[in-house]
């Protein structure tokens, strides 16, 4: 290893032995797999939820402003395009929620084995669909 950038890929483990660090999935060079797809989807849903906070802000501010402003926001959110956007946001929220729990388990060093990682990945996908569908079934029943 003669390149300084390569030196960044070599670290020491807890026993002081030199080890090659693993490379994170790189979108351009990695074959799409469930692991990398769910990983980038965590980011995408995170960014989407960031846009969603603009809707939350608008909702709270108009609620604090007055009936006229609030009813406009409520009407837009209750239109078919508003419902479609909200379904997207709830789906993103439940995905980020479920996959976030998966990430927290990884932070504790648990669930790194490939079969486990694939299984929890599918659990996240199923949980996202079930929670999102459940939310909207209850939502339409309450509404």
């Amino acid at each position, binding site marked *: *290893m003669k390149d300084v950038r390569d030196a960044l890929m070599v670290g020491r483990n807890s026993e002081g032995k030199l080890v090659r660090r693993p490379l994170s999935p790189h979108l351009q060079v990695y074959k799409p797999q469930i692991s990398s797809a769910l990983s980038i989807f965590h980011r995408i849903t995170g*960014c989407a939820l960031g846009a969603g906070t603009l809707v939350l802000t608008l909702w709270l501010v108009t609620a*604090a402003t007055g009936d006229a402003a609030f009813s406009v926001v409520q009407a837009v959110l209750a239109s078919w395009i508003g419902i479609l956007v909200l379904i997207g946001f709830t789906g993103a929220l439940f995905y980020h*929620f479920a996959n976030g729990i998966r990430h927290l388990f990884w932070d504790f060093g648990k669930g790194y084995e490939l079969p486990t990682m694939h299984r929890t990945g599918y659990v996240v996908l199923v949980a996202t669909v079930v929670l999102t569908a459940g939310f909207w079934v209850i939502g339409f029943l309450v509404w």
Partner: protein
Amino acid sequence: MDQLNSSEPSVHVLRSQLGRARGLGAAGTGVAHWWAQRVTAILLLPLSLYFVASVLALAGASRAGVAAYIGAPWNTVLFLLLVGALFYHLALGLQVVVEDYVHRESAKLATLLVLKGLIIFCALACAVSVLKLAL
């Protein structure tokens, strides 16, 4: 030491451990960001479920209904906590995304400043609105 042909990793460049540690990561800083992201994530687990339940409870509610709900003391506290944790977590998350994908220092700095400014603006707007509905 013919380590170039071996699969064992080795370092042949002159670079101190300190220099290596300093250069690591797009942010070039320590673990405070990582910790804050995890703590807010754990906080947001119950808070986001609470938020989802609140949205369901308020489906189709009038403005007076929303005001009465958010105005209840525990709901005011939980909404303020939610707004704080949510926007803090968002700022931390978006910062990592920008640091990973925006490579020019000036563009990175500008993007981060604009995003964080916008996030503080929205967080303040939400917090003030919650308080206005409650007080």
